């Protein structure tokens, strides 16, 4: 097991390097020269310079900034290695990701390290809550539909699930905002908390819950469709197994058959889905955060994309890829844990 995980981690590492290098190349397609912009700005702030002096000063600063950003070479591989931090820049310093230098956000006027934690915290909180909510609803619903397959209730849920997974997230969000905020006035349309008020303790939690309720409901609703379908399908497969027939023939109570025999068999594909889905939710909540004005990773990413804040985007991208790769690994391991027939070290 340990060996397998190590092997997978090594493989993951290779993929991460390939992907980040590809992304790095794509970013370098964008015609932007940060050293030039910075040098230009700094020269502008200096007063009492003759044109010759300012030109000389600019050239000096330009070189300095190029060295600082590691862009004094056109070799993309060298630039990439400098960005990662395994190759020194022209001054012989190692300043890259490995040294903890994640870059500088021009939009927030702060180091990326300081920009990311707050949104990440929010995103993780929202996602954990919505995952719990969605699982709490979909698993019982899926089981119920599978057990009562073909009944009126099953068909009704079936229609809803197909609608649920055919609609894009933002559409459902618009619909909910219209219904709950505009017509019923139950929830605020956007924001994280009541502005200009400092609350503590219980009141703080209540305020947060008031603002996060609608995004959570929307996110949960969006995931209901595909999850319910999946649980139902794997449960139906499990219920048609021979062991279920045997159990029933032996006179085991139906409840025990469903929850002990069938559900454990159905769990295998469900576990895959749950983990994969939990990880994909980091990118799924991108839309929700954007729509409800929540200060999360997705919102940060879209703002950065709009303002071309590339240091932040690079880090976020690496984060998303890492999450996805980790997810694959966890799925494989979880497979082995849930299903004794699968031996992961093979």
């Amino acid at each position, binding site marked *: 097991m340990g060996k397998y995980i190590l092997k997978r981690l090594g493989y993951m590492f290779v*993929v991460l390097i*390939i*992907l980040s290098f590809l*992304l790095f190349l*794509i*970013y370098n*397609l*964008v*015609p932007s020269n940060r050293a030039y912009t910075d040098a230009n700005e700094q020269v502008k702030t200096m007063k009492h310079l003759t044109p010759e002096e300012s030109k000389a000063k600019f050239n000096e600063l330009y070189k300095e900034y190029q060295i600082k950003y590691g862009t004094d070479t056109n070799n993309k591989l060298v630039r990439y290695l400098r960005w990662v931090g395994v190759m020194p820049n022209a001054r012989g310093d190692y300043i890259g990701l490995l040294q903890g230098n994640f870059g500088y956000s021009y939009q927030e006027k702060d180091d990326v390290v300081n920009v990311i934690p707050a949104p990440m915290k929010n995103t993780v909180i929202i996602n954990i809550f919505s995952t719990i909510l969605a699982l709490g609803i979909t698993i019982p619903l899926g089981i119920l539909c599978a057990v009562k397959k*073909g009944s009126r209730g099953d068909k009704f849920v079936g229609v809803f699930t*197909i*609608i649920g*997974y*055919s*609609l*894009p*997230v*933002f*559409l459902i969000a*618009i*619909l909910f*905002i*219209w219904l709950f*905020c*505009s*017509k019923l006035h139950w929830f605020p*349309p*956007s924001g994280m908390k009541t502005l200009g008020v400092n609350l503590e303790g219980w009141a703080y939690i209540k305020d947060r819950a008031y603002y996060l309720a609608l995004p959570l409901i929307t996110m949960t609703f969006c995931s209901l469709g595909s999850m319910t379908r999946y649980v139902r399908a794997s449960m*139906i497969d499990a219920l*048609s197994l021979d062991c279920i027939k045997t159990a029933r023939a032996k006179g085991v109570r139906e409840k025990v058959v469903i929850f002990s025999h069938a559900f454990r068999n159905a769990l295998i594909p469900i576990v895959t889905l749950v983990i994969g889905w939990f990880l*994909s939710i*980091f*990118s*799924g909540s*991108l*839309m929700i955060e*954007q*729509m409800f004005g929540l200060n999360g990773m*997705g919102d940060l*990413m*879209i703002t950065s*994309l*709009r303002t*071309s804040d590339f240091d932040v*985007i690079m880090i*976020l*991208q690496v984060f*998303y*890829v890492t*999450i*996805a*790769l980790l997810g*694959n690994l966890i799925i494989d391991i979880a497979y082995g844990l849930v299903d004794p027939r699968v031996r992961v070290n093979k």
Partner: protein
Amino acid sequence: MSKMNNKETSSKKRGLFATLGRWFKRLFFGSSRELEDFDPVSAAERARQADVEEIVSPAMQVFRGFVAHKGAMFAICVVIAMFILVFVGPLFMPNYDDAYKETTQKNIRPGLSMMSIPDDIANDIKSVDSYGSFSVGLSNSGKVAVWGDTKLGTTGIDVADIPEAVQNANILYLAAGYDHIIAIDDEGHVYGWGNDRLGQYGYFDETAYPNILSMPEDIANGATVNVDDIKELECGYQASCILMKDGSKIIWGNKNSYSNLDTISLNPTPIIDIDFTLNFVVCIQEDANSIFTGQRGMYTKVRGDLDEDTVSMFEFIGNRKIVSLSAAQKDVAFLLDDGTVGFSGDYSLNEVSMGDFEDGEKVVDISSGHHHHIIRTNLGNVYSCGDNTWGQLNVPRKAESADHILSTGFQNYAVDENGKIITKWGLKGYIFGTNGDGQDIFQRIINGGKMTMTIGAVAVIISSIIGIIVGCISGYFGGAVDIFLMRVTEIFSAIPFLPFALILSAIMGSLPWSENAKIFLIMCILGVLTWTGLARLVRGQVLVAREAEYVTAAKAMGVKESKIAFKHILPNVISVILVTLTLDFAGCMLTESSLSYLGFGVTPPRPTWGNMLNGANNFTIISNFWWQWLFPAIFLAITTICINVVGDTLRDVMDPKGNSER
């Protein structure tokens, strides 16, 4: 078997399309008939077989199973209808233009009432006026009616609520601006209703409101004007003017919408005629033979018809005199005392010219809408020129017998000498309303659907080409090739889809490429990010098919490996591929609309169902202008739901295990 092989080789000569066609034929009708061609069974034999049991191909079985699902059949009909609608529909909209914008038609509610003049005044009409979403009509007996979209945006004001005083009074003059209405009764009282926040009517203190040229205080407070002296009442965007017979005028309104309001107001020279374009007040001064705006160089170039070259105003007029003028939004038409008409101002290229007059034909009167002019001559002929987006220029035959024609905004009403409306033509309204740029949502849905579906289809084609090739090669050859290709597939499937697509299109979007290249790029991005599922599926199917007997037979006959993979195995797994393609198509459409919604896909003014919803990302629009997001959303939702239903049903009926259980 050898005959089968002959068939294969002969089909090779017939080319790719014949082969593809045969696959499809086999998929839906089975290959039994092909066999019949060269292995004929006697008729009696066939009849005997039919007696025993009807043998159908798997594809036929699938087809029958599919037909048995009523919901799925309905869904496929809807999908086909949607396809026809978005690909054929634009052909019926020759006047549609992506970049069309109309300031006066913003955020109009769905409805077709913009030309529905109420019956009680239609037989006794005196004047009709319209500037924005609604029209006002005045009957000879002094009655006022308002029709069209009368609720004004987010203000909550309904101009159809005519003040009681106006209803009781005998109104003589009536005019409508963008969001206000001005009326003058027979005693000289001036009434105003509608929006009054920007100086449209009422008294505003000059120091407190520097951008408003106020209505005179006494008139606003109920003082009367001498009705007998009034020549005309005109309303512009958010301004109004009462012109007196002696050439003086009372003018007021929002200076932000009309920058030369002050200049005109302070100019003491008597004027003959006054009108409002979208941004300027234009008038004819008694002594100067030109169009006066208070600004140099405006309306100095004139043409006799829209397709003629411009000459200077001085040269064009010579020793004739301007009698009256009639302003559209960007241009002004004016009438000279010898019955000639001249046009001055900006014209877009797609505007239609008036055509030639008969000999000795003289223009009697001009009436103008927002972008068109209707010209009536002494012979009773009606000419029209300008923009024909809403059919404003399609003058019906009946209009030739009219006494005069009332043109306002985008509508025209031909009136006979008794004040009865003979016929009307122009814009009826917008069936799905308009958006914040004044664009017709219905037309944009049809044209945007074309873009959305094209992007989805091309993306799916790209992804299926990659997926099928990778899957076939990987599954058939196995070994190192398989391992390598599956690693590549894993890398691609590890990419988090939406963030990655966002980043790619944002970065590519900042490159200096043409609009079409960017759209193609979006298709490629979607295609390249979605092929992994299909590749895995095809690989799995090929792995199974590889062991089948017909493949062994083909191998034994010495058929080339690549040919076995693509020509023998692929046709047998094409049904599975079709299902995935269907579901992927819906998926790609959704992703495209998500990207466009966030502003990283196709950008306006080019419409797609996604970026039409982009306008709906703020709360004001969501809660007030429901039609702007609801209609595109419905179209997008129905299409994707139906495609998914079709895909699901196909998958269900293709799975024999699922079938037996049902």
